[in-house]
């Protein structure tokens, strides 16, 4: 009986959520400071994330828990977290940062160096990582913020493309540092056997793999991070970011210390990226320089762009599409579906599509990016403000 409840609740939440979303879609005042609908939307997202792995067995009517989703969601969840972090920098403050992976890597190495027995940084392997893990989470936030500020100070006089190039270089510098500074970082083979702490397991009654705790942990993490990002956006600080994005010179002449607030944006984004890195090192059990290449930054940026800049729901959706899709294609259901449509497609063997899409996913991403940019430049779930800007650009272009 207990098992039925989450699925039903989720369904109800979906229904009320859709109606609610429609009713607020055209209304501007719900962006008022500390508005309830924003909170509700966050809650809705979290509830959905919790509810999706549950499914109803059509034979018995039982509600079951599908463990495969967890493997996917763990990764998608991590990228959602990174997306929310980068969204502060790119979506709120309008600073194009292509080196986001640097912060992700710092967080990952921070934890891995302390929790891996092969770590060259410490002689004593820490046996019980339980306290270490929880202590590292706030440390990772602080470390990320500090590195963000250190990077921000030299690059903030730069704008637009120049800023993008410099941050891109910074991301590579960090990766090369990790590869080459063998005596500190373990070099290109990375750190492995990183120990993970046992996490509390509130859904103990459902028998699934060990991924579940991580999944729950990350969903809670996403919720917290999204909450903080939302609070920052709807505040004096968020207004300063918006003003900087709209017109930096005017913002300065209204008394906004633009350098300070750009640094804040950098630091906040970096802190969240670094937090994500520590979590990722713990659950993947490794930190390898190769996994911190430019592609991570590009992926996070792409999911923001596709989902909708400045919008948390957009980040969630973008992560599911970009990060989740290749994984979903491994599912038996995907193969079944492709089998099913095979007779309808005369000249191709649709059963190959799953593999082909997975193998050529960057081609697919590229096409998707182009498609979104052409059809809906604000992203699939446009943040209200980005939507307005796009409308405006269109109107102005029409007028000229």
């Amino acid at each position, binding site marked *: 009986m207990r098992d039925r409840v989450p699925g039903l609740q989720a369904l109800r939440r979906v229904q009320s959520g859709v109606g609610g979303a429609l009713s607020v879609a055209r209304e501007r005042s719900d962006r008022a400071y*500390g508005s309830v609908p924003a909170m509700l939307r966050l809650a809705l997202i979290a509830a959905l994330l919790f509810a999706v792995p549950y499914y109803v067995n059509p034979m018995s009517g039982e509600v079951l828990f599908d463990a495969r989703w967890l493997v996917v969601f763990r990764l998608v969840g991590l990228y959602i977290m990174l997306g929310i972090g980068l969204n502060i920098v790119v979506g709120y403050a309008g600073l194009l940062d292509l080196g986001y992976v640097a912060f992700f890597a710092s967080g990952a190495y921070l934890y891995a160096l302390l929790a891996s027995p092969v770590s060259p940084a410490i002689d004593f392997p820490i046996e019980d990582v339980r306290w270490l893990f929880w202590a590292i989470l706030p440390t990772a936030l602080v470390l990320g913020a500090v590195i963000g500020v250190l990077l921000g100070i030299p690059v903030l006089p730069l704008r637009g493309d120049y800023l993008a190039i410099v941050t891109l270089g910074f991301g590579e510098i960090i990766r090369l540092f990790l590869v080459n500074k063998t005596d500190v970082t373990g070099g290109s083979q990375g750190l492995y056997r990183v120990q993970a702490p046992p996490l509390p397991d509130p859904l103990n009654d459902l028998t699934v793999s060990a991924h579940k705790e991580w999944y729950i942990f990350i969903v809670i993490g996403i919720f917290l991070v999204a909450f903080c990002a939302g*609070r920052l956006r709807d505040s*004096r600080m968020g207004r300063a970011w918006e*003003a900087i994005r*709209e*017109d930096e010179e*005017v913002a300065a002449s209204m*008394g906004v210390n633009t350098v300070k607030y750009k640094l804040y944006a950098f630091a906040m984004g970096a802190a969240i990226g670094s937090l994500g890195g520590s979590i990722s090192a713990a659950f993947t059990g490794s930190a390898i320089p190769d996994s911190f290449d430019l592609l991570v930054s590009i992926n996070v940026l792409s999911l923001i762009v596709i989902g909708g800049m400045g919008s948390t729901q957009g980040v969630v959706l973008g992560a599911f599409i970009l990060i989740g899709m290749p994984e979903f294609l491994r599912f038996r259901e995907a193969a079944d579906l492709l089998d099913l449509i095979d007779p309808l497609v005369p000249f191709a063997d649709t059963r190959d599509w799953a593999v082909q899409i997975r193998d050529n996913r960057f081609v697919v991403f590229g096409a998707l990016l182009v498609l979104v940019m052409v059809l809906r430049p604000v992203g699939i779930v446009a943040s209200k403000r980005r939507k307005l800007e796009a409308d405006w650009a269109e109107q102005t272009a029409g007028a000229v």
Partner: protein
Amino acid sequence: MSAVAEAILETKGLTRRFAGVTALANLDLTVKAGSIAGLIGPNGAGKTTLFNVVTGFYPPDEGSIVLDGHHIEKMPPHVITAIGMSRTFQNIRLFANMTALENVLVGQHLHADFVAKTIPETEAGEVIELSMAGMLAYRALFPARAVWEVLATVARTPRVRQVERKAVEDSLRVLEFVGLKGRHDELARNLPYGDQRRLEIARALATKPKLLLLDEPTAGMNPHESQEVVGLIRAVRDQLGMSVLLIEHQMRVVMGVCENITVLDYGEKIAEGPPEAVQRDKKVIEAYLGSAGVRGDDDAAEA
């Protein structure tokens, strides 16, 4: 502002060059505290450049700028705003996709600072008032203040809420003052042209300046609207006690509202004085109409 004739803004030998062009040449300008001063001159005379230089957008090449007793020639724009000067723009530069209220709230930025109360000085104070040791201590505390600002914002403490509420109330009052009552939820870009000009003034007023710089506040307005803006400028001075320096092309407005007028041509000051005197000045008429205009009547400058 205690002494009657004290200068709120004083520039000495102010020079600014762009490549080969001297946009401002050795300019001495004084705006008396509590006065409404005008700045006129033909297109390209350097009026807007002067605004850009004194507000810190471009650093001056030479010369000094003193605002309310502080040397501001090397200060960044936000500190100059904190000391007490803010401006509007010739080509309206509102935050177009923010509401009227949000625009004014950005203007309130310095006065909605919930961190400043825990520290004796504001950002301006940091630069001006503190001793070297005090300044170092203040800077050293920056990380602590930054962390506090972020945490308090996320936690939305009662103090943050209170400051925010007051900022919103003050902003609504400013909007009412400029005649935009009830329009606070509209996007800046959806406002009619005249209201956008008013909103720019409101945003500048929200920084609580001692000196308000208005760059062609009545540009593109009909005589009736211009007259309303003149009323608003007078109210700024009479009710809010701020000094005003305005650039203006409509002579009816300049002559009607300004107590003292400075005329620029090719970056140089060619005349200065009360409206009647400037109106009759031969050099001014020449600058506007060419040398043939010198023989014309007194209203020539108004053309």
